[in-house]
């Protein structure tokens, strides 16, 4: 039996509290991450919804950007919702020219793609890997994935309306991102999908360590 996974929530700005409340319901320990040393102590990270330009500036200013990039390169599971999707994207559209991202997801993300706040909406989205009813999705000045690279698995698309078919949920390896905010609705299934990825990685690593010990 593996230990309880420790999942950090990047707490520079945004709807941190909702993610902190959701993760323990799935058997994970949730902690806030604002500093490189706090990042070093987690098994996974959630990048919450919020204002991506603000998060990016604070991450750079407080020396988190390079540690975050290194952690992603090392295979740290990261889930980004809304602004978190923007932070994980390799390429951005409709962003200030100096906006930096952590990157890791081979996607092009368009900021505020659905329009302004008056265009923000609720809908239902089928998510691959989430059984049962479609996920009730809240989109707030949301981004979408304009283009996804070959290694990126599309988990969900908008159905109907002017944005019909747009990609709003993706996975690449241990990285998961959604345009919408499951943390706002009380539907824990997207977080559960992510925590499963975290558990699998913990088990693999524990197995690898055990294997090494047997060799000795």
């Amino acid at each position, binding site marked *: 039996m593996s230990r309880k996974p420790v999942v950090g929530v990047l707490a520079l700005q945004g709807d941190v509290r909702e993610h902190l409340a959701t993760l323990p319901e799935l058997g994970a320990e949730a902690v806030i991450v604002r500093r490189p040393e706090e990042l070093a102590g987690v098994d996974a990270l959630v990048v919450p*919804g919020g204002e991506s330009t603000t998060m990016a500036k604070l991450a750079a200013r407080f020396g988190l950007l390079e540690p975050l990039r290194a952690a992603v390169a090392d295979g740290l599971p990261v889930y980004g919702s809304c602004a978190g999707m923007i932070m994980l994207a390799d390429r951005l559209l409709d962003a200030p020219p100096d906006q930096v991202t952590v990157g890791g997801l081979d996607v092009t993300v368009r900021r505020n793609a659905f329009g302004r706040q008056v265009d923000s909406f*609720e809908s239902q989205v089928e998510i691959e890997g989430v059984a049962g009813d479609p996920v009730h999705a*809240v989109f*707030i000045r949301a981004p979408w994935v304009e283009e996804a690279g070959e290694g990126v698995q599309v988990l969900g698309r908008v159905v*109907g309306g002017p944005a019909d078919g747009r990609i709003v949920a993706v996975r690449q390896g241990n990285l998961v991102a959604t345009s919408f905010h499951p943390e706002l609705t009380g539907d824990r299934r997207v977080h559960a999908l992510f925590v499963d990825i975290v558990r699998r990685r913990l088990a693999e690593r524990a197995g690898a360590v055990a294997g090494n010990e047997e060799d000795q």
Partner: protein
Amino acid sequence: MAEHSTTVPTTTGTEAVKRGMAEQLKGGVIMDVVTPEQAKIAEDAGAVAVMALERVPADIRAQGGIARMSDPDMVQGIVDAVSIPVMAKARIGHFVEAQVLQSLGVDYIDESEVLTPADEAHHIAKSEFTVPFVCGATDLGEALRRIAEGAAMIRSKGEAGTGNVVEAVRHMRAIRAGIRRLGTLDATELFVAAKELRAPYDLVAEVARLGKLPVVLFTAGGIATPADAAMMMQLGAEGVFVGSGIFKSGDPAQRAAAIVQATTFHDDPDVIAKVSRGLGEPMVGINVATLPESERYATRGW
């Protein structure tokens, strides 16, 4: 919940979308701006949103006259200049200013006591709009009355344009103490509390159960330094509005960035000390105790 089972694929302007928008602003700083150039400076400094208005509160105080919604050209210029959300102020009760701001595509409307009220009895019926509203409050009852009208976000009022944080502290403490008190009451006492608060019983019971407002609570009115912002966060604010404090100071860009950083690291005195160094002159303040009643904005709103 019925709307989710209809054949319409998407719904806009819902409570979840309006309140959810404010949840995304948490831990951030919203800055008053009067021009697109100021809006750019605010965005570059890390503001989560900008607030468009005709004049900053300190200038409204100095110049007097009627303070109104900003010119549509100016609002449009600000909307076009930045990629972060744009809020704009409408006068209390001036529902047509609100309609105009919604048609201009602003992301949030502040029905604000800083502008000259257009109605001395009624606030805007905010639920009827697609765009969400933020409103000021001096105590819990006022906050709940605004939420009942449809406000999707509350800010403690403070006393805008003074650079004096004392009223922001008073109002934040009053709101938070009111919430804590509700948590100590039994079911029958909650009915009396609703009467005393002059607020709907259902909202009062909800706050008692949640131990917080059902919407995000920011602070405003007199925040001028990084330490002011951090103190308000420690007192329970979920984010900060800064009005005159930035563009009436000696070095707006640097002060704006410092207040953003102090808001995120509000519980870390080392960071607050570091970002507070070398900021230049803060805005000149006003002693609120010497302000005549007629010049206090916090008393506007009912």
